[in-house]
C-alpha cells in the first residue's frame, strides 16, 4: 500500500535517472578540484617525498661511504703492519747474515793474522838461529884456536891451513847436526 502511495506521489521523479545539470556540475566541480590537486597539491607532496627520500638515502649513502673508508683504512693499516713485520724479519735476517759474515770474516782475518805472526816468528827464529849459529861458528873457531894455541903452545900462523882445519871441523859438525834441526 505504501509503495503505491509513494509511486503516486513521486510522479516524474526517478532517483536512478540522473539529472543532466547535476552531471555537468559534478564534472566541472570534479575537474576543478582535480586541477587544483594536480597543479598544486600533488607536486608539492611529491617534491617533499623526494627530498625526504633523498635525505634518508643520502644519510645511508654517507654512512656506507664512511664504513667503506674505515674498512679501507683498516686494510691499509693491516697491510702496513704486515709490511713492517716483513721488513723487520728481513732486517733481522740481514743482520744475522751480516753478523755471520762478519764473524767468518774476522775469523779468517784472525787466522790469517795468526798464521802471519807464526810465520814471522818462524822466520825471526830462523834468522836468529842463523845469526847465533854464525856467531857461534866464529866464536867456536876462535875458542878452538885459542884452546889449540894453548894446548899446542904455538901459534898457527898459516892462515890457509888454520881456516881449512876449522872449516872442515865445522862442516863435519853441520853434517851431523843439520838433519836434527830441520
Amino acid at each position, binding site marked *: 500500500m505504501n509503495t503505491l502511495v*509513494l509511486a503516486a506521489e*513521486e510522479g516524474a521523479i*526517478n*532517483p536512478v535517472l540522473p539529472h543532466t545539470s*547535476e552531471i*555537468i556540475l559534478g*564534472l566541472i566541480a570534479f575537474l576543478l578540484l582535480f586541477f*587544483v*590537486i594536480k597543479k598544486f597539491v*600533488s607536486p608539492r607532496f611529491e617534491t617533499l617525498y623526494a627530498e625526504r627520500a633523498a635525505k634518508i638515502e643520502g644519510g645511508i649513502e654517507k654512512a656506507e661511504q664512511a664504513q667503506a673508508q674505515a674498512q679501507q683504512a683498516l686494510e691499509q693499516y693491516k697491510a702496513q703492519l704486515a709490511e713492517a713485520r716483513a721488513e723487520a724479519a728481513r732486517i733481522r735476517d740481514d743482520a744475522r747474515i751480516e753478523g755471520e759474515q762478519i764473524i767468518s770474516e774476522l775469523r779468517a782475518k784472525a787466522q790469517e793474522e795468526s798464521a802471519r805472526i807464526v810465520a814471522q816468528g818462524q822466520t825471526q827464529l830462523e834468522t836468529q838461529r842463523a845469526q847465533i849459529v854464525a856467531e857461534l861458528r866464529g866464536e867456536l873457531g876462535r875458542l878452538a884456536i885459542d884452546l889449540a894455541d894453548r894446548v899446542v903452545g904455538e901459534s898457527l900462523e898459516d892462515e890457509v891451513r888454520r881456516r881449512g882445519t876449522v872449516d872442515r871441523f865445522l862442516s863435519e859438525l853441520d853434517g851431523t847436526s843439520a838433519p836434527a834441526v830441520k
Partner: protein
Amino acid sequence: MTTMVLAAGDEFVAPGVKDFFLPPIFGEVTKPMVLLVLSILIIGVFFIAATRNLKLVPSKFQFAAESLYDVGRNSIAREQIGAKDFRPYVPLVLTIFTFILVNNLFGLIPFVQFPTMSHIGFPLAVSLLVVYPVYHFAGIRRHGLVGYLKNQTMPPGAPWFVLPLLIPIEFFQKFVLNPLTLAIRVFAAMFAGHLLLLVFTLSGEYLLFAGGVTVVVAPVAFFFAIALTFLEALIMVLQAYIFALLSASYIGAALAEEH
C-alpha cells in the same frame, strides 16, 4: 507500521524519494549543488593550506594532510596500479577519494545532513566521464587499440573453447558495466543509508509527538537512528575508499601486461 499510523489517528507519511529532491534554494540551484561546490572548496583550501609550507619533519597539521595524501597515493594508487606506473594517477585517485569522501560525509554533518552522492548524477559524472575515459585511454596508449582490446577481453590461461562466451562477457563488463556499477554502488549506499536515517528519525519524532502510549517506543527509534549514524559513517568512508580503489584497479588492469 500502517496499523500504528492508523492508531495514532494522524497519518504518518514515510520518507521516500521526494525527500531527496528538495525544492531549489534559488533559481535552479539545489542543496546538493551548493554542497558539491562547498566540498571542492573545503578540499582545495585544506590541501593548499596544508602544502603551503611543507617541512621535512611534518607538523601535526601537515602530518594529517600527508596521511590523507598517502591513502590515495600508497594504499590505493600504488597498490592497484603498481609501483612503476602509479605516479601520474596519484592526483586523480586522491581527487576521487577526497571528493567522494567529503560529499558522503555531508550526510552526517549537522544542519547539512545530505549526502551529495545520493544524487546519481554526481557519481556518474566522475565514473562515466572521468574514470571510464581515463582507463581506456591509458590502456590504448600503452598497448594500442587491438592489443588493449585483446588484453581486456581475453584473460590469459582461458581455454580456447570458452573464448566465444568469455569475450562478450568481458567486453560487456569492461566497457559497459564498470562505470555504471561504480556510480550505482556509492549512489545506492548513500541513498539507502540516508533513507534509513530518515525513517528512524522521522518515525521517532512522529512517535514522540503523536501522543498516547507510542511515546515509550520513540527512544528505540532514536537509538537505532544513532546506531545507524555510526554505521553510516563507516559506510561513507568505505564507499569513498572503494570508489577510488576500483578506479585505480581499472587503470591498473588496463595498464597491466597480463591482467
